[in-house]
């Protein structure tokens, strides 16, 4: 049976159909979940897709973190369920306090939209368990506020605990320590600025994102995820 992946749709999300399609292309069962819903019952994994949730007003993710679905996302994550935030989804997870740090305006103020090379820095995460440590993946970025920042103590802590999951080979946005993606301490919540769903077929220019989506489905079938309350 396919793993059921809930893809949360906020007003202003714009990558949800791409994620559903890409999850399907690696054998998962992607389903849209409206942000006003309050339950994630029956899902094995959750993705917060890219876009401009609630118009990115105030700050990206600042309003989305109060969407009704976010309590369920928090419970799902606390129970060990895999939760991935892509781009705007990453911003929402940091605002919600589910991931460390914050994403601010790109150095140079440019909105960037092009493929980048990412290095896999940890394979102990819901998004990289099937990847190879040190692998270089070619995946597009598409953001104006992807400049990862945090205080020095947090940086030391996430580096020491192996929570840096991806680094840019060439830093496109000024992110601290070239960080492109981070996980929580348990590794089941992951956020990244690049879009693996846009690198899920050779036809799209790269299929390097598939291993990440396969990892997500793998994480969805771990005993930890299955033991969570329905």
């Amino acid at each position, binding site marked *: 049976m396919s793993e059921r992946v809930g893809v949360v749709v906020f007003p202003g999300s714009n990558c949800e159909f791409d994620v559903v399609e890409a999850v399907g292309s690696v054998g998962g069962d992607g389903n849209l979940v409206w942000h006003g819903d309050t339950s994630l019952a029956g899902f094995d994994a959750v993705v917060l897709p890219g876009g401009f949730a609630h118009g990115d007003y105030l*700050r990206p993710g600042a309003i989305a973190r109060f969407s009704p679905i976010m309590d369920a996302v928090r419970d799902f994550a606390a129970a060990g369920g895999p939760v991935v935030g892509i781009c705007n989804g990453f911003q929402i997870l940091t605002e919600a306090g589910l991931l460390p740090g914050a994403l*601010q305006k790109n*150095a*140079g103020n440019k909105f960037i939209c092009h493929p980048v090379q990412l290095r896999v820095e940890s394979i102990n995460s819901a998004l990289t368990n099937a990847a190879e440590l040190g692998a270089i993946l070619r995946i597009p970025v598409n953001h104006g506020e992807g400049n990862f*920042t945090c205080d020095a103590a947090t940086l030391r802590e996430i580096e020491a605990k192996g929570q840096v999951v991806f680094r840019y080979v060439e830093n496109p946005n000024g992110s601290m320590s070239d960080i492109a993606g981070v996980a929580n301490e348990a590794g089941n919540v992951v956020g990244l600025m690049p879009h693996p769903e846009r690198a899920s077929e050779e036809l799209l220019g790269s299929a390097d994102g598939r291993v990440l989506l396969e990892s997500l489905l793998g994480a969805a079938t771990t005993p930890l995820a299955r033991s969570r309350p329905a």
Partner: protein
Amino acid sequence: MKFEVAVEVRLREGIADPQGQTIERALPALGFDGVEGVRVGKVIRFEIEASDAANARGEVEEMCDRFLANPVIEDTEVTIT
């Protein structure tokens, strides 16, 4: 009583400010020399009903902590009149 509130949200010290840097680089091109330390923030203004200024301030500070600023990168300064 009704109080006028201005919340200045600004990037914490030590957090890079790409907008401020861009403005700082642009100013000399317009003939404004000698400018340094440009930092860009925002001001959120509103009115609030409260029994006194202290209560108004308490409520506004809670808004700042929970919503108006991201404490990871931002500080706030609240002015109540």
